[in-house]
């Protein structure tokens, strides 16, 4: 079913692109707005994950590197730029060409420069929704500022796609988005049970629709089916892995090129990951009298847009609520925003929860930066502490 949903996503992207109604969006973009205005979205970050899973990261990133982009640049950005340069040599022949590029910097600042680079190549205009990082909650003026950005977004989309925003339609889309997110959240929370019905890789794959098709009705069906399956597993006591012995928290994007080998290898040793900080990032429902205010709140308060304290709190909360024995922080060379502060987090989280953790280093797409032997030693040592 997941395959069908994702196939439909690709197909709809191509159709929209041909009709001149496709926008590329960043993963934390309030996609409900373009969706309500009849503009379809494609996700370069998700595409980059496909590049990673197909194990062609070094090749596609290499296309961007040939143009002069540094290996230090995020490998999602390099994959994105590389696949625009050489779609024929990239998985699925690249993403369908966009008519606009919608970036929200609630996940990082890299996306803006990345979309600027794509804009130079495709001539699609860039719109930036600026959501300055929050440190200690969202102030009233922050909210007003982001809200005014959403008004500008509506103007931008009206101008470029010749459409209008109707409040009724936005409410419908918001409601569908909320339903999908709520079902997804229930799937995640079912993993508090022992044995956990889902492992890390399961969640990383199953989250694709909630990232890329929030606000559509068919993904609500998909998440309902997933929740039924998860509940069935819980009732029957069927775990995601055969013999659950150790429950760990995962932090950060996974190494896409190695995702099955990595998590299944650990599963054979009785290690399951009932929770991670990444798939828990899609939460919050757009509602209330002032929908724009709701959008401005939710999209400013995403995990990566908050300070280190909030990250540490979240990790501690997950470790306690999901009854976890330890944690693995994946330090992703590409994603400075996600990986910054992990050294301090490790210390604080261990101190507060009393469970040990390790930091392993690598990348989500660029397999050249992944040293298996070094990672193995760190994880083995962690497991030896726990067994």
């Amino acid at each position, binding site marked *: 079913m997941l395959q069908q949903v994702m196939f439909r996503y690709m197909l709809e992207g191509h159709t929209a692109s041909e009709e001149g109604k496709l926008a590329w969006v960043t993963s934390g973009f309030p996609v409900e707005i373009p969706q309500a205005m009849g503009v379809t979205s494609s996700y370069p970050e998700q595409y980059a994950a496909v590049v990673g899973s197909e194990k062609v990261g070094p090749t596609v990133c290499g296309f961007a590197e040939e143009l002069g982009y540094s290996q230090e640049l995020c490998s999602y950005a390099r994959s994105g730029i590389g696949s625009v340069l050489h779609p024929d040599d990239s998985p699925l022949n690249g993403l369908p060409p966009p008519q606009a590029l919608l970036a929200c910097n609630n996940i990082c600042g890299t996306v803006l420069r990345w979309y600027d680079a794509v804009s130079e190549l495709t001539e699609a205009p860039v719109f930036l929704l600026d959501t300055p990082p929050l440190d200690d909650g969202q102030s009233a003026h922050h909210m007003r500022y982001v809200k005014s950005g959403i008004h500008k977004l509506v103007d931008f989309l009206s101008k470029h796609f010749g459409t209008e925003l109707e409040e009724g339609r936005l409410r419908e889309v918001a409601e569908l988005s909320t339903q999908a997110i709520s079902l997804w959240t229930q799937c995640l929370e079912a993993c508090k049970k022992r044995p956990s019905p889902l492992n890390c890789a399961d969640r990383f794959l199953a989250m694709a629709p909630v990232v890329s098709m929030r606000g559509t009705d068919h993904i609500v069906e998909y998440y309902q089916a997933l929740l039924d399956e998860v509940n069935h597993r819980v009732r029957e006591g069927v775990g995601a892995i055969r013999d659950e012995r150790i429950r760990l928290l995962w932090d950060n994007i996974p190494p896409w090129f190695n995702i099955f080998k990595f998590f299944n290898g650990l599963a054979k040793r009785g290690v399951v990951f009932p929770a991670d900080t990444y798939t828990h990032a899609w939460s919050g429902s757009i509602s209330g009298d002032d929908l724009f205010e709701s959008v401005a709140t939710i999209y400013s308060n995403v995990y990566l847009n908050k300070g280190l304290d909030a990250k540490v709190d979240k990790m501690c909360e997950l470790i306690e609520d999901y009854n976890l024995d330890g944690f693995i922080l994946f330090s992703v060379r590409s994603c400075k925003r996600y990986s910054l502060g992990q050294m301090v987090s490790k210390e604080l989280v261990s*101190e507060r929860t009393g469970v*040990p953790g390790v930091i392993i280093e690598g990348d989500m797409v660029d397999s050249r930066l992944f040293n298996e*032997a*070094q990672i193995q*030693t760190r994880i083995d*040592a962690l497991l*030896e*502490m726990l067994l």
Partner: protein
Amino acid sequence: MTQKPKYGIGLDLGSTSTKAMLIDRERRVLGSHLLPTGASAVGAAERCLEAIAIQAPIDVSRSITISTGYGRSVIESADRNITEITCHSVGVNHLNPDIRLLIDVGGQDSKVIRIGAKGRPEDFELNDKCSAGTGRFLEVMAGVLEVPLKDFGNLALGSTDPCEISNTCTVFAESEVIGHIGAGKRAEDIAAGIHASMAAKIASLSKRIRSTGPLGLTGGVALNPAFVHYLSIELGEDIWVPEEPQMTGALGAAILALDEGD
């Protein structure tokens, strides 16, 4: 195995040297051997095992072997492998149960481990990516100064006015050292600066692990008196060094091998 093992064999396959240790149930050392790993970890391990077999001919069927170190998984004759993090903790804890923070500086990596009251690791940090802060750093610098590695520490201890080496990167520090040579600085003072710089690097790694309690140093670099001296200054603490600081990983593995049969 129906009977308990009579002997434990620990094999530590480090990147620079391979060590083997044989102990009996009373944890008495019956044999031990150390060899440069060279190009073949398996070959070095076999030769180490042959050497301890000559030192103490035992009934091998009554022994259990545990391998550790970066090459731990390539040894087929081992019954099991355990990381060097755990093995070093167990080995050091056996020799000195008071030690709570262990710094191990090997030929090509360094690690800091907090050891719990039961002798098991509780937290650790590992540097296995960069030659600065490992024995390799001292080896390169000794080469630049044309001093045999074994004399390098003593040379540094003769310094009266240590040079400042501000770069911790091996490559940059090398050009800094060449600069000092060019400026006519004494070899003793340059050597002292090199040791102090490396001690600062290791101290900063060790500060990542919070610990209160006595400090131990193992690994080949612990044999270097100038490094121990500067590290102790840098950390403001006395440092305990075992008699054979390179053997604690193999010792820990041998002890764990005996536990295995229990």
